[in-house]
């Protein structure tokens, strides 16, 4: 993948008032997800009610940015023409340390990807906006203190 991802003509998110905090945080390089103040569960994607207990007491918090790779695929034939210049590229299912799973763009590390790899948030400009992409944590890399 040699193309500058930021120049891709890809489809951006369809933002609503409810989901705007997620995308505003993404633009600043943060990953914000909802947390339920009643059952304590983290929620992704954003909703007006907690999908676990249906409480409306959802608050936004920054996620740790840590997760692990549940599955991935190297895309050779993208479903959207805007991604053709980037192919092959990798998307994956990222289980966040907070619990929920999200689909994301996975940046290349120095080694081949494997399911179970630890991942770290890697905000990346794609198609003219910063998205919460992820990259593998290199083996032996020290976790920096927060």
């Amino acid at each position, binding site marked *: 993948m040699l193309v500058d991802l930021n120049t891709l003509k*890809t*489809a*951006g*998110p*369809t*933002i*609503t*008032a*409810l*989901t705007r905090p997620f995308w505003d945080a993404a633009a600043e390089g943060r990953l914000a997800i909802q947390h339920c103040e009643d059952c304590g569960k983290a929620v992704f*994607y954003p*909703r*007006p*009610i*907690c*999908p*676990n*207990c*249906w409480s*409306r007491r959802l608050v936004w918090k920054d996620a740790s940015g840590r997760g692990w790779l*549940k*599955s*991935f*695929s*190297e*895309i*050779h*034939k*993208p*479903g*959207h023409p805007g*991604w053709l210049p*980037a192919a092959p*590229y990798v*998307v*994956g*299912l990222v289980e966040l340390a907070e619990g929920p*799973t*999200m*689909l*994301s*763009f996975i940046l290349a590390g120095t080694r081949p990807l*494997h*399911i*179970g790899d630890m991942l770290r948030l890697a905000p990346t400009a*794609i*198609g003219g*906006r910063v*998205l919460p*992409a992820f990259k593998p944590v290199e083996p032996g890399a020290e976790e920096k203190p927060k």
Partner: protein
Amino acid sequence: MNQSKGAIVGIGELKPQRLTSGVTTLEMIAEVSRLAVLDAGLEPTAIDGLLVGPQVGETPQHVPATIAEYLGLAPTMANVVDLGGASGAGMIWRAAAAIEAGMCEAVLCVLANNREETAPRSPNRNPIREFDVPFGASGANISYALLMQAHMAKYGSTARDFAMIAAAARANAQLNPDAIFFGKPADVEAVLASPMIASPLHLLEIVMPVAGGEAVVVTSAERARSLRKPPVHLLGAGEKVTHRAVSQAPHLTSGPLKSAMARAFQQSGTRAEEMDLLSLYDCYTIMVATTIEDAGLCAPGQFGAWLSDHDLSHKGDKPLNTHGGQLGFGQPELAGGMTHVVEAVRQLRGEAGERQIAKAGLALVTGNGATMSEATALVLGAA
């Protein structure tokens, strides 16, 4: 007074507004559903049936799955009721009928709509469009590639194991002159040599889109006795809807068909091993692999060995998709799932011609939608 057919136990209502601003129908459905379930004094987990209206534009397809995922529900009966102004009333008796049929116990019937001053440029506003597509994941191929990769990593299943499914479908299609791949067999090597679409998924492991159509007529067992063809009986059914987006799947290596098939076997008093025909939904090779395992025909992760141990042709010990499956026949969009019903009826009537199976008493038919997330199973029996 006649015996009650069902009871309405909770209601919810949103205050009408002339216009909404930046609110999706899904958000409103969540709000009003919560009110009705609170009114009923039920826990959300008690809701196991879901009837919804069509949402033209915003969520063009897979409407019940999208709403179930949004609400955190996993219903064992889910459907769209599309009767215009009669949809609400139409939901009530369908809910009662589904409960009477033993498919579920508590049905949420919900309709809502936003009213934006200017329609968004892209009408599709579902969570996949907002949270998957911008990251480069459009279309079903990627979802099933992610499921396949997870199976390989968890169980060590191989590309060759999966390719056997596509090769068997092509082989069976050689006895179906109507199949799109009639006259075009493909062996395991050909499947593995076909282009990589989304790793680990090869081109020949994906159905070919085609035009087509399928139809069936259902009547009562009593009425069926006086008609010209031998009836094929519905002996049991099961359904389960767990999610819409692959990222929200509760499991990657087992799907909702596991529960749907269990209910169908339980209702019919049959076991997977007793099926004379396996008519299994096969949009991708991984779908058949997971279904064989979820049916209990082999242990989880062992589908490859199971395939090697059995003959899947009409002459074999485990006939599977004798019409060629959709991998061999082609997928006429939503009618593709019905091909598995129609072939089962042909076999159970003894009308399958040169691909007729010798013993045709029981058939398992499965249907699957979205990202291994919408599942229906039927056990059919010969007259």
